[in-house]
């Protein structure tokens, strides 16, 4: 049986009960920084809750929740700099929010409106990548552009455990290694690729070890410990920024929810498996640590929850009040300049 519990050998700082396992990195000694990361995780969860509610009431499209994996997105993005480029899979809302994508944009995207990908914040970040693992070659390409232009940035791509079975993942890691590109690949190992368990996905003992084949460093971190995720990604980013090449980081977590709103996980996994995992989840873990070590109070907590819910509610109201684009928008940005071949159908559409 492949080890799936974050074991003591896996890099982490806070254990499931929020006890400190080893000396914290400097950023994690700062209350304001920890509170900021905590707030981002709480906002991510509030967003997830609202998005699912909207989908269940027919007001949002199929949606992929990040429940239980908030530390990965938030840890990754909080380690990044604005000039880096983020290339997300479809489950990294937390990272996108930290990067400056707005709640409104996320709702527009998941509500079926391309304007949700026209981020006003991180203009260079990629939109969500649905074809699994196909964003890894893009990250290598972005990293090539950065290297070629002498930019100090790093490309950071995230995908799930299932993505590591794809050629795109291996092939992209391989070129990152061969060309020593500043690209960091992060795996959100939430133990499930829809209905396929991690142990059935690959006989490899860890996903991190797949980096060995490409000559990259690979490591496993406790993906439910936001401090561990940020620290490991931060180290990889520093290394890449210094011209020492890319890395692979496997974040061990657990998908507490369904794959998406179109999925029913009860068809393939027992509730008895899921409930113990709630004891390891990242939001409660950091809350406990903040409470124990930084006098995070009930009032602080209530105030944060209230403000996150309010932000999400107002964003949802704005989203619901936003009408669709004019139909010809599907033509307008297909090419930089509309070819003559498309002008007639675009015109015809306009005239009904």
């Amino acid at each position, binding site marked *: 049986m492949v080890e799936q519990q974050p074991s003591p050998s896996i890099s982490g700082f806070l254990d499931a009960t929020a006890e400190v396992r080893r000396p914290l990195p400097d950023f994690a000694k700062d209350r304001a920084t920890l509170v900021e990361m905590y707030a981002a995780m709480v906002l991510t969860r509030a967003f997830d809750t609202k998005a699912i509610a909207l989908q269940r009431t027919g007001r949002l499209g199929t949606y992929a929740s990040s429940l239980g994996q908030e530390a990965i997105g938030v840890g990754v993005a909080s380690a990044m700099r604005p000039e880096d*480029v983020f290339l997300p899979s479809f489950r990294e809302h937390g990272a996108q929010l930290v990067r400056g994508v707005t709640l409104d944009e996320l709702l527009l995207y998941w509500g079926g409106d391309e304007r949700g990908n026209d981020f006003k914040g991180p203009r260079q970040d990629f939109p969500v990548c649905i*074809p699994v693992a196909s964003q890894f*070659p893009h990250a*290598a*390409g972005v990293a090539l552009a950065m290297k*070629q232009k002498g930019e100090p940035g790093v*490309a950071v791509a995230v995908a799930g455990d299932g993505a590591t079975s794809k050629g795109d993942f291996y092939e992209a890691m391989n070129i990152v290694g061969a060309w020593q590109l500043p690209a960091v690949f992060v795996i959100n190992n939430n133990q499930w690729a829809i209905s396929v368990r991690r142990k059935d996905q690959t006989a490899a003992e860890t996903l991190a070890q797949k980096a060995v084949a490409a000559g990259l460093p690979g490591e496993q971190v406790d993906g439910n410990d936001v401090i561990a995720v940020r620290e490991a990604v931060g180290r990889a980013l520093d290394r890449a920024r210094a011209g020492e090449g890319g890395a692979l980081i496997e974040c061990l977590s657990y998908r507490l929810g369904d794959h998406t709103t179109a999925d029913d996980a009860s068809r393939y996994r027992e509730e008895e498996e899921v409930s113990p995992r709630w004891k390891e989840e990242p939001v409660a873990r950091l809350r406990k640590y903040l409470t124990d070590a930084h006098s995070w109070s009930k009032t602080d907590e209530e105030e944060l929850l209230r403000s996150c819910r309010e932000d999400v509610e107002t964003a949802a109201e704005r989203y619901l009040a936003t009408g669709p684009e004019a139909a010809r928008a599907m033509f307008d940005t297909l*090419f930089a*300049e509309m070819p003559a*071949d498309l002008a007639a159908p675009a015109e015809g559409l306009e005239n009904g």
Partner: protein
Amino acid sequence: MAELTMIEAIRAALFRALEEDPDIVIFGEDVGIDGGVFRATDGLIQRFGAARVRDTPLSETVIAGVAVGAAAHGLRPVAEIQFMGFIYSAIDQLVNHAARLRNRTRGRLGCPMVLRAPFGGGVKAPEHHSESMEAMLAHIPGLRVVIPSSPTRAYGLLLAAIRDPDPVVFLEPKRLYRSVSEAVEDNGKALPLDRAFVLREGGDVTLVTWGAMVQESREAADLLADEGIFAEMIDLGTLKPYDRATVRDSVRKTGRCVIVHEAPLTAGFGAEIAADLAEHCLTSLLAPVRRVAGYDTVMPYPRLERHYMPSTARVVNAVRSVMEFT
């Protein structure tokens, strides 16, 4: 003005592009020190260095995917797939990313990349090296598919493709790489994309073709002229977006159309042309539109390939049949 073969004209265009824009990078398998298996990139690494002319690991997925990422982040990659027969693992990147990045970000990110690939038969190449699958690519919205048919058009269209802000698949008929040469002025001037070229004017029948089949079509037109049948010959140049207007105008004038392509008949790009003419030029047509194409078979190995590829005689016979139609 130098006499250049198509491969030399392609190399001249690449050289000029690298010279004029520091954001252009060339990468692919064996494009560096080897200069490409057909020598399209010969000498470029010596002149522009290994940072701008890069040998990739052997992965078509990565060649296309890295091109997408690099293009979206400010480079202008001109990537090579060694043979079109190996492009299929890159199709995911073309369909799902290159062709739709601008659209799905509503213009925030663009994808100014060129993917070059030799294609087509007639050079007795091994299995998987001779197919013509351009229609598959032309079906992808948001992607330009450009095919040159002479050294001059290879030079001008490749420069246009490289300077274009959107993704272009540039398919090079390898049968023409060295079979013809002509005076090509290396003046940096691009030819227009999305515009068909009327290579010869004539009033009796319109021959629509592209790539290597321009050769057979031209030979057929010469033979037919001896019989008093004057063909107007159109080289599409850009398959997609398709220059409907030029073809329709010609067919409205001639009333007859024969489409010639090396690719398999069914769902080949000729089908789109014929359908468009049926929709828009029915009253001008004096005869059914005919297609001369490859068969709906697997591309045969070299011993049989000449039987597969449309011959001049097949084009002549097709034209005669539409001329005789009453």
